[in-house]
């Protein structure tokens, strides 16, 4: 009985803190995406050859943990199958955050483009649904001085 109580309490705590954190995070992501909108990040492998661009590898990474509510609902969905929306938003946050950090890195170099952007996703840690790590990397092109 006590165990059930603890589990229910954890789910409620996870829901309250987890969804508040998610809302805050999305708000911050949208704000920063607008600020960095001008810096184009593309997946093309071939950079323009008109200028002698300076180039440098830029990276951005983030590790985001799942909350107890997400882990719990995901395990319920796992029984019946279907879209695991709690994890969809989690991974979306991680990807966009990694992209933003990469862009911030490029902006600090004064870059105008990031070419050949690649994402790398991996599952971190042994416990529960654990956490996911997303890394974004690409080559920043900076106009010559």
């Amino acid at each position, binding site marked *: 009985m006590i165990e059930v109580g603890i589990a229910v309490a*954890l789910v409620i*705590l*996870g829901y309250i*803190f*987890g969804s508040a*954190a*998610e809302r805050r*995070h999305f708000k911050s992501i949208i704000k920063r995406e607008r600020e960095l909108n001008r810096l184009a990040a593309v997946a093309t*492998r*071939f*950079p*323009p*050859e008109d*200028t*002698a*661009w300076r*180039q*440098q*590898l830029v*990276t951005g*990474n*983030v*590790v*985001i*943990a*799942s*909350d*107890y509510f*997400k*882990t719990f609902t995901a395990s319920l969905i796992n029984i019946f199958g279907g879209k695991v929306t709690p994890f969809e938003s989690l991974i979306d946050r991680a990807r966009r*955050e990694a992209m933003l950090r990469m862009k911030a890195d490029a902006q600090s170099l004064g870059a105008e483009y990031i*070419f*050949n952007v*690649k994402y*790398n996703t*991996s*599952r*971190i*840690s*042994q*416990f*529960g*649904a*654990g*956490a996911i*790590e997303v*890394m974004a*990397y*690409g*080559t920043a092109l900076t106009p010559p001085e």
Partner: protein
Amino acid sequence: MLISNLEFLPGYKIKRHLGLVQGSSVRAKHVGRDLMATLKNIFGGELTAYTELLQDSREEATARLVEQATSIGANAVLNVRFSTSSIAAGAAEIFVYGTAVELEDD
């Protein structure tokens, strides 16, 4: 040392291909950090300690890649790729590889 994940660089000519170079690094956090992460799993959010750990790990792997490239006389590494895998409980391996080349101004 120029590191890029493009296959060629505008303004440069590839003089010599020197083959694949690589670097890797395996790291783990101490138990206290893992415990904190377990707590964080209730509330959700970013695990800053792990973000930093992986960042450091990546830098070290890249340093090893550069070291290897330098030793064979390369001045650039092109088409660099990163890969991550968790090889044991609590430990992650970061692997970085690319093609070592000798570049020349066009």
